[in-house]
């Protein structure tokens, strides 16, 4: 048993994310072909689908990294399309990356502190003096970062350079950095990919804690079916950029179209083997 969580972040009011009829293509490749989904403020929505289905592209459209040709993405009262990624972050959407996008030369603490960026005064003139608000903000950021570090059991790695840490720890640091944004919506791109069973269980508990204690809405991509079935309130299945099923976990798992999409590459029903990872796992997508 983990000790009770000590996280006392005050997260802002969650918001609803609505994606409607999204189309995205790269020259010949149709990455997204009419994808719609909604993440209600009290939900964890999982997006699943075989490799190359367009899952990461969907997150990239939401966070402003890719620009879809058609469709709409709304968050609370804001239209996200046309926003730069930093603008999306400022509206309260935090995310992690499938292949990690940490600052590997920096310490764990600095990575998490960078998550606090929006809440610290960071002008060149104010920082030259390092007094008043700059100093206060900095102290506050250290407080927030420290709570997150404790929540994710990263104390032992606080000063360590990220590049020297094991993969599972790096995944946790990236979650911590996203939490430091104190977001209204959290997007996770394959949070447990490449993790061993114990690390997967830890991650499941962190996500559950976040959901239960803060009601933080989550949009998550994951190949690990056990993880998805245990945590998701709602599942969207993509195949070749096309939504082929959409509903609560039990319903989606029984859907013949879903079974077929997965059977095309691996045998057995969707929720059969714990940690089943269909057509795993190329890292061809370049998130930069």
């Amino acid at each position, binding site marked *: *048993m*983990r*000790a009770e969580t000590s996280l006392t972040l005050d997260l802002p009011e969650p918001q609803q994310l609505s994606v409607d009829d999204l189309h995205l293509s790269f020259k010949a490749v149709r990455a997204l072909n009419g994808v719609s989904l909604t993440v209600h403020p009290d939900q964890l929505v999982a997006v699943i689908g075989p490799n190359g289905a367009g899952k990461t592209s969907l997150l990239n459209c939401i*966070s*402003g*990294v890719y620009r879809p040709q058609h469709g709409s993405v709304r968050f609370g009262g804001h239209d996200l399309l046309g926003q*730069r*990624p*930093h603008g999306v*972050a*400022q509206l309260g959407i*935090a*995310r992690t*990356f499938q292949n990690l*996008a*940490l*600052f*590997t*030369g*920096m310490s764990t603490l*600095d990575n998490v*502190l*960078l*998550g*606090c*960026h*929006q809440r*610290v*005064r*960071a*002008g*060149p003139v104010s*920082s*030259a*003096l*390092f007094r008043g608000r*700059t*100093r206060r*903000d*900095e*102290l506050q*950021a*250290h*407080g927030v970062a*420290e709570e997150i*570090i*404790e929540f994710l059991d990263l*104390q*032992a790695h*606080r000063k360590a350079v990220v590049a020297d840490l094991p993969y599972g720890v790096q995944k946790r640091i990236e979650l911590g*950095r996203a939490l430091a*944004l104190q977001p209204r919506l959290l997007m996770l791109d394959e949070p447990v990919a490449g993790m061993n069973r114990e690390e997967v269980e830890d991650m499941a508990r962190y996500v559950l804690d976040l959901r239960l204690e803060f009601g933080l809405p989550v949009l998550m991509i994951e190949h690990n079916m056990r993880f998805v079935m245990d945590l998701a309130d709602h599942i969207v299945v993509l195949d070749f950029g096309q939504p082929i099923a959409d509903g609560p976990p039990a319903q989606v798992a029984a859907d013949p179209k879903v079974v077929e999409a997965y059977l095309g590459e691996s045998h057995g029903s969707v929720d059969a083997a714990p940690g089943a990872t269909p057509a795993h796992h190329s890292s061809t997508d370049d*998130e*930069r």
Partner: protein
Amino acid sequence: MADLVRLTRPAPPQDYGERLRIFATPGQRAGVLAVCVGLTVFSMTASSFWISTLVFALIASIAVSGLNLLTGFSGQISLGHAFFVGLGAYTAVYLGGEHGLPFLVWLPAAGLVCAVTSLLISPFALRLRGLYLAVATLALVFLGQHLFLNLPGITGGAQGASVPQPSIGPLSFSETTQIGALELTPDRKWFLLAGVVLVLVLLAITNHVRSGFGRALMAVRDHDTAAEILGVDVARTKLTVFALSSFYTGIAGALLGSYLRVITPEFWDLFLSVEYIAMLIVGGMGTVMGSVLGAFTFTIVPRVIERLGPQVPFIEAGIAAEGLTVSRLNVLLYGLFIMLVLVFEPKGLVALWGRAKRWVVSWPYRF
């Protein structure tokens, strides 16, 4: 079980103020203080040759520190900093000489003019990255030389311009003041002035890099997509650091021009830019002290060679010499030195210093 583990872990420091100190250890602070005092004592006793060497080293430290903010901390290579040094110097000529404004106005103004100029250029420059940016800023040096040469109204053209001397209240930097037994020659005053400005600049830069602003710079350098996702406005950060870097470099330029007294356009050429880059790389990019180490090394070593030159065999004197002259030997050693550092300690002299310190601290154990 987990609770037990938790109990044995060190409690996180509650007073985060401790983390925000400029010097990590009292020893570090004492060391820096000792170097400052040592240099000051030296400058009050040394001959003017060595004092002027130190003044040049201090001014170069300011310029390289400015460049470091841009290239070392935020990862944008600039070959154009000779232009900003020159622009700072000519701003001093224009505001201090032509308009007779006081030193305490023209010095910061030189920085501001450079900052504003860099903001005007940045819409073009900041679309570019890496080597493209290097080439674009290279163009700046040639543009600058052309302008400096062809605006004789301000720059004196090829004949050169004389740059005003600093004076603060009754303290004039062109004559000697006697304080008791201490003879404050202009050179010694210059040492104190450049030293004070450098300390202020280093303080400001240390503060920049230990705040959210500095973290954003390094984030942009290390992974710009990740930086954006966290809410860092990458374009704006690049713009800001370009201006800030030019600000400090412009201040160095005004000081350098003033210390040289007479400046001509060809002084602000590509070689000066390359020299600053070399100082930065050899000293250690992305560390505050690296810039100073690099600037001191590259300023002092050539002067030492110049002094020792006549004693060294094979060295010929005179302008018409065909063999190895002091200046040729200097260029040779310069190149050799850069290569040695890049091959054996790519992180610069600062890293070498860190290793030496660890070795001393852990003596007699070796690792």
